[in-house]
């Protein structure tokens, strides 16, 4: 991967919470890179560490958790521990969350919340900022921006609030936008509007996007590349079409076949994964998916498989498809099991 073109590079990121048993590592050895204008999806179930990965990048890990290992490089340079987050949060990296009601200040009018950003970060005058704010709100499809600016977040609908949050997030033209489950709380027709808008706005500004979701359909339709997380680790990564069309990891495969579809043959039963995902970090040894995996063998319970390139094992065109599974490319795996 060309490091120079990458907006953000995360290497060996590990986040841990104090735990009575196990390592307490809720994010383990996560590495990822996102190039300018690229849209990358981070998929996983609850407790997989996808949101904490994003929060670690934003340096918003809640207490008593902490980053125990790893680096986050922005444009190739470390966001040093001594540079105040206000210098880059919002301007270089912006974030929108599932429910903007919790990220917008409920006691401050919408207009003030947007102009605040513009005046502080872009040093616009009061009148300039108001004009720019109106323009931003109009561009995210808010019908009457001037009136909306005088209102409070609580009186807007969920879809409108998410538009406002997006307007604030892009107001300083961030190089990276992190969207954490931005459409989960929205109706499906409104979700389609917000995703289309997110696509258009980030394309206009050339922002890279890290889209976090539990919904494979949402990330699959929106992203160029996917990262699949399970129990704090990235277990598979690659171009969207490859990960969804030819998944390599047993977890990704099982997940895809357990989702009912609107098209095609209707199965009598859905393929399901036994058990439930672990919470509060993985175990000290072995593959975290082994207890639920149909292919698991002794080695899986003892050693955690490394994330390996799999292009040389299968006829996958791209060289960036990776998965962490002992069974990969082992011809005799199924017979011996």
């Amino acid at each position, binding site marked *: 991967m060309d490091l120079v073109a990458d907006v953000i590079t995360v290497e060996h990121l590990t986040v841990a919470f104090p735990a009575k048993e196990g390592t307490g590592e809720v994010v383990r050895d996560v590495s990822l890179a996102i190039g300018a204008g690229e849209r990358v999806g981070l998929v996983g179930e609850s407790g997989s560490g996808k949101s904490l990965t994003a929060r670690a990048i934003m340096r918003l890990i809640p207490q008593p958790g902490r980053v125990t290992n790893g680096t986050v490089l922005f444009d190739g340079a470390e966001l040093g521990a001594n540079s105040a987050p206000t210098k880059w949060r919002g301007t270089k990296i912006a974030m929108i969350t599932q429910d903007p009601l919790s990220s917008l200040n409920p006691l401050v009018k919408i207009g003030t919340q947007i102009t605040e950003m513009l005046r502080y970060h872009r040093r616009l005058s009061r009148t300039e900022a108001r004009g720019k704010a109106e323009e931003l709100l109009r561009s995210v499809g808010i019908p009457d921006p001037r009136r909306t600016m005088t209102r409070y977040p609580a009186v807007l609908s969920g879809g409108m609030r998410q538009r406002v949050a997006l307007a604030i997030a892009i107001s300083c033209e961030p190089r990276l936008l992190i969207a954490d489950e931005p459409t989960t709380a929205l109706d499906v*027709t409104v979700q389609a509007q917000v995703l289309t808008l997110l696509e258009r706005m980030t394309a206009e500004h050339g922002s890279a996007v890290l889209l976090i979701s*539990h919904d494979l359909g949402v990330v699959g*339709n929106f992203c160029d590349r996917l990262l699949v997380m399970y129990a704090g680790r990235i277990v598979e990564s690659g171009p969207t*079409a490859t990960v969804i069309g030819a998944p390599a990891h047993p977890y990704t495969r099982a997940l895809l076949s357990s989702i009912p*579809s609107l098209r095609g043959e209707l*199965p009598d039963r859905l393929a399901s994964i036994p058990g439930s995902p672990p919470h509060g970090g993985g175990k000290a040894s072995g593959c975290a998916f082994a207890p639920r995996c149909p292919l698991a063998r002794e080695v899986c319970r003892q050693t955690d498989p490394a994330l390996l390139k799999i292009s040389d094992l299968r006829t996958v065109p791209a060289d960036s498809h990776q998965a962490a599974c002992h069974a990969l490319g082992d011809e005799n795996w199924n017979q011996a099991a």
Partner: protein
Amino acid sequence: MTDPAHVQSRPDEQTAAAPPVVDVRDLRVHFKVHRGLFGSQLVKAVDGVSFSIAAGETLGLAGESGSGKSTVARTLVRINRPTDGSVLLSGAETARLSGQELRAYRRRMQMVYQDPYDSLDPKMTIKDAIGEGLTVRGVPRARRKSEVEELLARVNLPVALAGRYPGQLSGGQRQRVSIARALAVSPEVIVCDEAVAALDVSIRAQVLNLLKDIQADAGVSYLFISHDLSTLRFMADRIAIMYVGRLVEYGTSEQVFAAPAHPYTQALIAAVPDIAALGGPRPAPLPGEPPNPASPPPGCAFHPRCPLAVELCRTVAPPLVRKANGQLAACHVVPDAPEVAR
């Protein structure tokens, strides 16, 4: 009310002999909402909805927020009282039951909620929560333990969990407990209101399969409410689509998904990001948002968002009638079935 909807409310002719287990006719649920000191406003959460569910059948009810789908569910289990209309259970009118009769009715109609953490008493062990239902059914104390174990086995939970509290279980396990609890009274109908929405993707398939197995075993009917159309396609024999208190489309699952008649249903299906349709062209999203049910637009409530809207749609609400492609839909523009075919 002479709503044509309830005259011909069934997309499939019922096999004449057995009446449907649930037969809802022209159901209306209105709420008075107080505004300011003296003002009040009538919210028509459900406004003239008719449907039926046969024994062992699943009716899927879909709609966005504010469509009234949860109010329909809550009215069926009588958390809310119907304002008007009738709810027939195995042919008997139940809309105005109270007291002892209502308790008996609730035994036959159970509900599984979205979040089992809210619906299970956190201070009650699993065996007590399930045992409560058995008491209601009049199972003698001596048999209770073995019946609880039987119910746990039926929802694929280990018997060892019987002494635990809801907080000690995972989300999927808790939802299985709510299902076991609903089954404890041997109901004829189970209303599932977003029953898998709060579960992780890998757990959802387990619970959906379980619900299907239980139906195959016990012949129970489901009213399955979900905003997720792909889940409904898997679960339901027939589908009803709601928009602001009314049904806009009603037909067999096959008809509705293969050839949706109403423009809203079409938009809803198109808006689902489906992994099977990856890389295909994305349709332009439907503009606007579902209206506030307290002040729905006049005429057809969908007209401000509808690509097909004509002048008539702004003033007159269209009736639910049979359309050319077989199912019932409420739209002025979509052509009706020829008279003979009705």
